[in-house]
């Protein structure tokens, strides 16, 4: 029984951790809002209350789940917040920063408990002292601590009590049943109970909701006064209770009552905290979404029965054909709706990622001596959970970049005739089938001249090269590029925009920057709604059909022989307007011999990968459609150049190309042929 109960607690640890992390985010944003809010007492009160409540629930939960240290820090922070609350005070900058430090410490502690890797707990002693000192400054005594003091353990001895218990008439209406209390006493030892019915009125005056009886109980056994007090603790204001100790004989050899001690020791409960909670395998889903899903399934069942009606032998006459068509149309609509609702199950609001930025901007702008206002919008925009998890780091990098390199210091801004406070807006919204996240600042913008000279310095482009503005902007994404004049603590840590772009690409997204010198920069991220379904272009190579992810296709052109130039040991090049694009014969790379090898005719699908363009030579372009990605790794094994497989409408299987992999394959094939030629 006890084990099963411990399991219940253990299973919910992950839920508590999740909640604690959420509550900490809430506290953090509350504190930041407090800092910004004008002296509006109502608003301040409301915010302090919210923050207090969040801290309070962390404390209660942490204590219950055995995270003593978390509970302790939360308790000290709560005491300080309580002072603020009772005084309806707005915390000064010092207190806010102390509370923010506490949030960090709590977060670290929660993560530490979650990891359960046996490492030492982060130390929080100093922090608690600081919190107490701050609370003391705000006045008031520490009566909260006094209330939390534990009762001393009592010795076991043979005792005899006489207890007089006369409930007030209204005791029953607090849900306390006198009989229950008497039964409790009988569990403690041997009892003799006598009832006093003197107060009992005449039957017709008797009110059913009132209690008229009183009792005298003689209780004998190894009972402590505390145990009796405990029985009456809920009703000591609702009844007259008189406890008298009659005989007290010391029996030192008496074994102590088996007392259930709570394990308050974090070490005793520590290590197993890690179990079942890693991996982020679970997701919280609103009931509304599940209802919608259920609804959709219901619709499908109806559609199925409509189609079932049509079943039967014999030719399909016009009437049945019409209802078959209707049924199929319904099926198509329901399938689409079902697909959408299932996708929305995996979605989470992007706000869960954006919520970290107010704090980041607050801290960073202080550190950099800049004034920045962060504007967030579209936090409720839903994004696939997998996409969302991988979005955090690139976005953080972009925000850091914008504050570090984009928005100028107040004096510079003043000199440029701009308001001293810069603005960074982050907007998230749906456009077409994509999620768009836009970061826009009103800072200095990209200085193309500086970028070009830096790139030349770094040898990324030749000294005499002439580049278009777009090409210069593109240089930011080159590995090893950094424009900060001084490599700063904030961004230039060697992780550049190339990594950001790679991360965004890894989740099937696309990043683009536009900028006006002196006016600001806008970075646009386009992200897919989901990774499980992609928009694909079907292409024919020989007798096979392949899927090229639409996102990587720039354009498709019919090949013109006169624009092809071939060099020994190199990929043939195609002159596409100003540029030369290497041609890769898809059939050649994939070993489809029936595929087109000759460059006299056919189609070039121009794709972009890692900033490089490739022309994939195919026989024909077929339909564009959404395809469900099935993993090759789980069903077969990883194959270079392929991202997965899908099943087409006619039931045949088409392989999905990994454009990056194709580029690698083509390059290694070329190198091999160069090796042979040499």
């Amino acid at each position, binding site marked *: 029984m*006890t084990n*099963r*109960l*411990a399991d*219940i*607690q253990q*299973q*919910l*640890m992950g*839920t*508590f951790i*999740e*909640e604690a992390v959420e509550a900490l985010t809430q506290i953090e944003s509350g504190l930041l809002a407090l800092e910004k809010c004008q002296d509006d007492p109502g608003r301040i009160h409301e915010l302090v209350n919210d923050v207090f*409540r969040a801290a*309070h*629930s962390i*404390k*209660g*939960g942490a*204590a*219950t*789940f*055995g995270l003593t240290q978390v*509970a302790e820090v939360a308790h000290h922070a709560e005491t300080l917040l309580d002072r603020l609350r009772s005084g309806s005070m707005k915390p000064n900058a010092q207190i806010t920063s102390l509370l923010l430090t506490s949030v960090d410490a709590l977060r670290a502690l929660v993560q530490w408990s979650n990891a359960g890797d046996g490492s030492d707990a982060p130390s929080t002693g100093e922090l608690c002292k600081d919190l107490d000192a701050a609370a003391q400054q705000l006045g008031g005594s520490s*009566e*909260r601590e006094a*209330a*939390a003091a534990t009762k001393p353990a009592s010795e076991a001895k043979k005792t005899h009590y006489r207890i007089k218990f006369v409930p007030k008439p209204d005791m*029953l*209406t*607090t*849900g*306390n*049943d006198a009989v*229950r209390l008497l*039964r*409790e006493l009988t569990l403690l030892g041997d009892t003799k109970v006598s009832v006093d019915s003197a107060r009992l009125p005449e039957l017709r005056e008797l009110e059913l*909701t009132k209690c008229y009886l009183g009792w005298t109980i003689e209780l004998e056994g190894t009972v402590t006064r505390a145990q009796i007090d405990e029985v009456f*603790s*809920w009703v000591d*204001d*609702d009844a007259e209770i008189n406890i008298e100790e009659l005989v007290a004989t010391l029996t030192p050899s008496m074994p102590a009552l088996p007392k*259930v001690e*709570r394990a308050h020791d974090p070490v005793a409960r520590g290590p197993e905290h890690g179990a079942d909670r890693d991996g982020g395998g679970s997701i919280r889903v609103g009931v509304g979404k599940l209802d919608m899903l259920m609804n959709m399934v219901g619709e499908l069942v109806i559609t199925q029965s409509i189609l079932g009606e049509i079943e039967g032998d014999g030719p399909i006459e016009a009437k049945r054909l019409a209802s078959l068509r209707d049924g199929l149309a319904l099926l198509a609509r329901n399938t689409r709706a079902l697909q959408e609702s299932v996708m929305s199950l995996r979605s989470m609001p992007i706000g869960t990622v954006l919520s970290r930025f107010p704090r980041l901007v607050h801290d960073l702008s202080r550190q950099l001596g800049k004034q920045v206002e962060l504007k967030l919008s579209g936090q409720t925009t839903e994004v696939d959970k997998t996409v969302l998890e991988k979005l955090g780091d690139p976005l953080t990098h972009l925000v850091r970049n914008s504050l570090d390199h984009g928005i100028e210091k107040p004096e510079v801004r003043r000199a440029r005739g701009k308001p001293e406070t810069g603005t960074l807006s982050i907007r998230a919204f749906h456009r077409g089938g994509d999620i768009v996240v836009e970061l826009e600042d009103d800072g200095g913008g990209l200085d193309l001249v500086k970028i070009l000279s830096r790139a030349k310095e770094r040898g990324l482009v030749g000294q005499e090269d002439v580049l278009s503005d777009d090409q210069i902007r593109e240089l930011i994404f080159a590995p090893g590029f950094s424009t900060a004049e001084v490599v700063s603590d904030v961004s230039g840590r060697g992780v550049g925009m190339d990594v950001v772009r790679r991360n965004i690409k890894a989740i099937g997204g696309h990043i683009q920057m536009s900028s006006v010198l002196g006016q600001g920069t806008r970075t646009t991220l386009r992200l897919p709604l989901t990774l499980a379904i992609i928009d694909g272009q079907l292409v024919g190579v020989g007798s096979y059909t392949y899927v090229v992810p639409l996102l990587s296709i720039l354009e498709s052109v019919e090949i013109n022989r006169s624009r092809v130039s071939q060099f020994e040991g190199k990929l043939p090049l195609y002159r596409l307007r100003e540029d030369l694009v290497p041609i890769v014969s898809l059939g050649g790379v994939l070993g489809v011999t029936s595929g087109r090898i000759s460059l006299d005719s056919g189609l070039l699908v121009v794709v972009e990968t890692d900033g490089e363009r490739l022309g994939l030579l195919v026989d024909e372009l077929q339909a564009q459609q959404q395809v469900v990605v099935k993993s090759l790794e789980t069903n077969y094994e990883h194959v270079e150049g392929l991202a997965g497989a899908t099943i087409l409408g006619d039931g045949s299987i088409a392989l999905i190309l990994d454009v990056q992999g194709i580029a690698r394959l083509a390059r290694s094939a070329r190198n091999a042929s160069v090796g042979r030629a040499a």
Partner: protein
Amino acid sequence: MANVLTVDDSVSLRKLVANTLASAGHQVAEASNGAEALDVIKTRTFNLIISDINMPVMDGLTFIKHVRVLAAYKFTPILVLTTEMDPAKKKVAKESGATGWLVKPFDPEQLLNTIRKVLG
């Protein structure tokens, strides 16, 4: 076995109460704040209500005041879950109509012991 309603905005604590009681064979319903709980208690009769105090939308004490005036819940045991219990808090809780309290931290076993007291 009893019909129990547990009210808490914290999912982990609410589930801890609910799962513990369910493991002891009780029928448990859940609500995440006082306002929600007021709706739930109208759907069926509960033999016991366990409510957190600090909750958004409607706090536990306000909820209990609303419950106590309903004829069906005049004598129903209502326990509050609280982090500390000093005389002042106790007075407020009792005046709101609470039967008793369960002080956090508690573990499932303590919870069941307390419940046994109330339900017999």
